[in-house]
């Protein structure tokens, strides 16, 4: 019995489309608002004990722009499932799954940090890798690889430097 057949009773009609990826992983495409319900059912009814990662893919300039990806792992059955949901670029948001898998907390924070996707209900959604005051979302496709200078951190540092020694401003 493959993974898709195994999880079919658990997810019911919540998945719009199911497929199998090149590596043989079961994939579900869902509506963003169903994310919490689908993942809760997978955890409780299909024994996916652990969340491997949470991330996003930016399909800029296509719209809906972001594809949030969750991957769960069932150690009891030795299989994985990948769940994908497309969210628009204007106000990207999906429900959090931290209440189901506490281990997803850093993954969601990183995803917010890098793409600006808001995980609604996350207990401490703030940047993970970039400085807290950073202005941009670096893994978005419209963010250049070499960075954007001067960003706010640089401007603040520059202003502080000028306040200290006015002649440096000339």
């Amino acid at each position, binding site marked *: 019995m493959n993974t898709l057949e195994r999880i079919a009773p658990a997810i019911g009609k919540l998945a719009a489309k199911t497929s199998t*990826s*090149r*590596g043989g*992983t079961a994939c579900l495409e869902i509506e963003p608002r169903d994310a919490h319900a689908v993942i809760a059912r997978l955890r409780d009814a299909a024994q996916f*004990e*652990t*969340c*491997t*990662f949470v*991330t996003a*893919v*930016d*399909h800029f300039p296509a719209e809906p722009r972001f594809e949030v*990806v969750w*991957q769960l792992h069932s*150690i009891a059955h*030795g299989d*994985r499932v*990948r769940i994908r949901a497309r969210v628009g670029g204007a106000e990207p948001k999906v429900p959090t799954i931290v209440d189901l*898998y*506490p*281990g*997803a*907390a*850093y993954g969601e924070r*990183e995803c917010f940090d*890098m793409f600006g996707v808001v995980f609604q209900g996350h207990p401490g959604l703030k*940047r*993970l*890798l*970039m*400085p807290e005051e950073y202005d941009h979302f*670096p*893994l978005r496709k419209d*963010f250049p*690889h070499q960075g954007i200078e001067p960003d706010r951190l640089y401007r603040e540092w520059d202003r502080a430097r000028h306040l200290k020694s006015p002649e440096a401003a000339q």
Partner: protein
Amino acid sequence: MTESLTLDYERGAIHEDDPLHGELMQLNVGPQHPATHGVLRLKVTLDGETMREIEPVVGYLHRGKEKTCETLGWRKFFVHTDRLDYVQPLLNNCAYALALEKLAGLEIPERGKVIRVLLMELSRIAAHLIYLGTTGIDLGAVTMFFFCFNEREKLYDLLDAYTGHRMNNTYVRIGGVYADVDASVQGAIEAFLDQFPAKVDEFERMLTGNRIWFDRNRAVGVLTREQALAWSLTGPNLRGSGVEHDLRRAAPYSGYETYDFEVPVGTVGDCYDRYLVRVEEMRQSTRICKQALARLTETRGGDFLAQDRRYVLPPKSEMRASMEELIHQFKIVTDMALPAGEAYGAVESSKGELGFYVVSDGTSHPLRCHIRAPGLMNVQAIPTLARGRLLSDMVAIIGSLDFVMGEVDR
């Protein structure tokens, strides 16, 4: 006449209603603290010496590897994978190669798989030696550091002899490995493996029954089976908590299903269990390496690199003699496209499940390359393990979780 005066033995103790009790102090451990094994900062809220709350702050070593992968393209990112968990570069290479091979649907020849297994297990031994040495020195066993680094040095000399580098080897390619293992290197690896189990026994004699080691690790940082799974822990940390899960067994890659080895599993889930698991893994890795060496002798002369000119560079000699091969070389170096789709390739690294989630739009540059870093999950678990313990236990807990910041921050 003398009268005896009874002293109030408890007069110095702080009572529950004392205003001093419960006064919390914020302490910053790191980012430049030797016990944090890299640039990790921990915001600790202390009540006396007891840790009430711990907040790990990561990102000091963030170099934007995932963005770099999107910019450099599939092939050129190989050298960057080395710099993730820099104590086990070859394991990182293999994980990335596995993801790309899944995407490309490429089969690698038997000898390539055997060499990969050998390199991965040697890397695992090297990484576990670092764990043992640094955790030892953090907990007062300074000699362990020198013992372990001595062994690691021998191992690095072997990797130097084979790959030409001590660290950051980048020797794995899509479809196999860059070059064959010659007989002299094979002999040297065999000699190392012959003397290594005795060294592991020596490490165990130093630590396993050592009173200080015992007291500092037993019942410290206990993680139950359910907690370990919920916090997405993998590798030795998960096995220390009694979950028998090893990707080499559960989802074999590179032919691991044909090797004979055991998966050590802990019972309690404390720092001591995680230590025992890693020590035993070094022995099991030695076993796997020996089997791989025997297979190297059997498959001598065989292909170690797939012959698929869409992804694998032609040999230099052929490239110089044939126009067609020159074109292949040019196409691969400048514009090696992978078929559109997505794949997830993961290996059991020394820290846990190291995975690469790659998404291709059919061009030479990835649409997305997400690195599933086991170290980040290990850092994430620190507060759960350390809450309510003494500050000095934090050193044991950080050491036993085993992470490398290059991989945590990417």
